[in-house]
């Protein structure tokens, strides 16, 4: 499809080594990952003990450095940890039963750490109450509550639900989009759903467990992981004649079309949770072609059609807007100084498509893909295999933090601190891999 970089959005520190092994085995594309914090016992202990922001910054910088990541993600802040104490939900201001810490406090501490350390990618947030009808209020509260700090809210579609109507499930996209337009510190990706079979994989063990009755087919896995995080994997089938699924599809598209600034909204399907990423060309057509969009819409659950204003939205994305949303904006958001543009110093990652009225057809098969200046695809066929680099940031931290971390690893965990750290050599590995350290922004106290 012509993409030349991919980012793993939720790497558990304790499992980061595996994430890098898998990315290492993926040819051609550049890669990188966001390390997951916010349900790890080390951070929650620090917060319960009311440690100062500087110690938290040191811990965040240490973790991102030694798990070889480029950003920080938080998933259901504190909720994965709360599930281990048998809490089944955790609202924005609800306390973890052991630590007494709330999701709002976790978000503020981590967003501040990311900003103060100068990490370019804003804190990447999978918010509270994923998939729960009425969660739009939590989402609006989360945006207001971050106090102007940069924050990326991921798969916002799954967090934009109201409780109106006969089904007690309605679209909150208009209010959410209005809030995004107003808060210039907020970026989002949509997490569009598309119909058919997929599998959902998430660090949010709490909500994956809560949703297990919807697994299709009926098999599922969850895990509590290393006093660090958790995960859950459930197969799922989105059906166009289901009221809820049809409305989810509409909510995603409403969000795309109502958010004005293409530099602050990104094209995702929350792969594979909303749909596999291979459906991007189809999604681009839905955004660029109103006639096609309304034709698909007219075949969906009739009550859902009545509950959505999608049919009345005339906007069609331009090619420039698609280029921003999928390339230039994305590279800027992640903090890749040398990608996503054709200016001086830019790596020559270039994809060429032939203009075609059917945008799905156009974006399914590029004419040419150049990776770092080398042609790897011609007329849609792979002609060369290269191995991309791993993008990281290396924020500074006070080395004295290792004294308390070493004690923590020795006492409570089951591996040594030194063995946790992923060396640069491991990324280079058999010679195919390489490390690209991206520049930090200006940090400092906020």
């Amino acid at each position, binding site marked *: 499809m012509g993409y030349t970089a991919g980012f793993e959005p939720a790497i558990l520190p304790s499992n980061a080594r595996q994430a890098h092994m898998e990315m290492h085995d993926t040819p051609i594309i550049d890669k990188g990952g966001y390390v997951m914090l916010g349900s790890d016992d080390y951070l929650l202990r620090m917060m319960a003990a009311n440690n100062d922001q500087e110690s938290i910054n040191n811990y965040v910088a240490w973790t991102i450095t030694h798990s070889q990541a480029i950003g920080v993600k938080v998933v259901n802040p504190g909720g994965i940890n709360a599930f*281990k104490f048998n809490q089944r939900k955790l609202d924005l201001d609800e306390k973890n039963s052991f630590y007494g810490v709330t999701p709002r406090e976790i978000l503020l501490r981590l967003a501040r750490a990311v900003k103060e350390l100068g990490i370019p990618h804003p804190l990447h947030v999978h918010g509270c109450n994923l998939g729960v009808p009425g969660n739009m209020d939590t989402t609006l509260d989360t945006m207001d509550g971050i106090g102007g700090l940069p924050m990326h809210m991921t798969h916002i579609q799954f967090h934009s639900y109201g409780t109106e109507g006969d089904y007690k499930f309605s679209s909150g996209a208009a209010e959410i989009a209005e809030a995004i337009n107003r808060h210039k510190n907020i970026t989002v990706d949509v997490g569009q759903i598309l119909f058919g079979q997929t599998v959902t994989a998430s660090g949010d063990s709490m909500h994956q467990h809560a949703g297990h009755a919807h697994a299709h087919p009926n098999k599922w896995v969850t895990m509590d992981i*290393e006093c660090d995080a958790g995960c859950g994997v459930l197969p799922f089938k989105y059906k166009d004649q289901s009221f809820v699924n049809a409305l989810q599809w509409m909510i995603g598209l409403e969000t795309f079309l109502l958010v004005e600034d293409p530099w602050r909204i990104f094209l995702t399907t929350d792969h594979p949770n909303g749909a596999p990423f291979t459906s991007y060309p189809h999604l681009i057509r839905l955004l660029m072609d109103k006639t096609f969009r309304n034709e698909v819409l007219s075949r969906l659950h009739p009550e859902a059609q009545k509950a959505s204003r999608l049919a009345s939205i005339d906007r069609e994305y331009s090619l420039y807007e698609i280029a921003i949303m999928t390339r230039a904006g994305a590279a800027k958001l992640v903090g890749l100084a040398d990608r996503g543009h054709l200016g001086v110093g830019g790596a020559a990652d270039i994809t060429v498509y032939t203009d075609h009225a059917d945008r799905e057809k156009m974006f399914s098969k590029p004419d040419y893909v150049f990776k770092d200046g080398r042609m790897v695809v011609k007329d849609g066929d792979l002609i060369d295999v290269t191995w991309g680099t791993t993008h990281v940031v290396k924020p500074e931290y006070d080395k004295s933090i290792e004294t308390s971390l070493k004690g923590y690893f020795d006492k409570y965990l089951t*591996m040594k601190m030194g*063995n946790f750290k992923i060396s640069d050599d*491991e990324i280079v590995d058999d010679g195919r891999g390489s490390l690209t350290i991206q520049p930090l922004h200006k940090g400092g106290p906020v």
Partner: protein
Amino acid sequence: MTEKVEEGVWQDVPSPFCGIASDDLTVSVKGQKVSVLENGDAYTASGFETPVTDKAPRVNGKVVTLAVAVEHTARLINNSKQTVISGLATDLNGARAAMALADKSRATIDHMNSVESFKNTLVLQDTGWMNTTLSEVKNRVDMLLIVGSDIEAGFPRFFERIIWPEDTLFGQDIESRDVIYLGKGPSGRASTSPEGKKAEVMLCDDADLPEVLSILRALVAGRAINAVDIGGIAVTDLARLAARLKAAKYSVVTWAASMLDFDHAEVSVQMVCEMVKDLNTKTRSSGLPLGGKDGEVTVNQVAVWQSGYPMRTNFNRGYPDYDPYLSDSLRMLKDDEVDTLLWVSSFDIERKAPASKAVTVVIGRSGMSFDSEPAVFIPVGIPGIDHSGRAFRSDGVVSLPLRQLRNSGLPSTFDVLSAIEKAL
């Protein structure tokens, strides 16, 4: 990271031999001789200390250069109608090289521990599970139920490292932890608490364990049971156990698939996993399968992320084709479906290729002896002793960096398999 603390002494060395990847070993290296000074057990001591003997490859019993052995092996594969690459006791890069070779030569891959690991894999594929990892168990478990397994016989340091730590994160008094054996009892005293509290034991024969487990699950689910006795265990005792599991805040149910030595043990594993799911309706409970020796978890992980499938996958049609029955290497060898067997065994000299009519190439740890000389023997180094590497532990989440501790001059499995692939 493994550190050299003085000449010839290394600390924080991870064990690639014990399954739970204990990484607190102190190891001394004098020339070619390796000794575990601290925190060894039966598996790690013999793993580290088995001496290097032969370093020269052999073809039909004659000493040859590595290049000749590689060329000969490539010819055997080129002329083969069905190659099986099995054993696969290796590390990350050995597994990657095995996958690449299997893909190119259209071979079938399998692992020496597949009979055991499939008792878990089939359950993961069919209904899934709710599992946990070692650090969570160390800090949270309040009740440990051990099913059909004498854990300390296979995992000597499990209790010391995971169940009886000095401190836990949440202020739990570890003496309050309950350990209960169902099926087999313990062979030693590792499961006894530091202050002497003994594990409870509910014995039954392996043959009765499937029924005992199904009754226990039924009791957890609140079903009425008419029987009074199952395999020698009173149903009232099982009912009490069910009640305690429901009352526990973080119970952990563990088993070692290698010790569930009866037909269709996967059905019993499934019974346990579904019971754990039922318990989680109200409280927290998790499964903990123990295994992971001989690179078993590492190799399955690599196969899954590269091909989508675990072991017992063949590449004959040019794409990964998974079939746990048709591509069971032991069955294939027994039924004479294999003409060439590549057996990789870089950890343990006792893990040898199964006897068969296939022409056998052994890529094995130096020091192996054979009842009948294989067509080719290529001695290789051990990951974490002779070369660096990475290995997954039992829970499939944590992997550890292995460091080179001595210079034996032996090639790695990755080197040898990659050379064979190139020579095809």
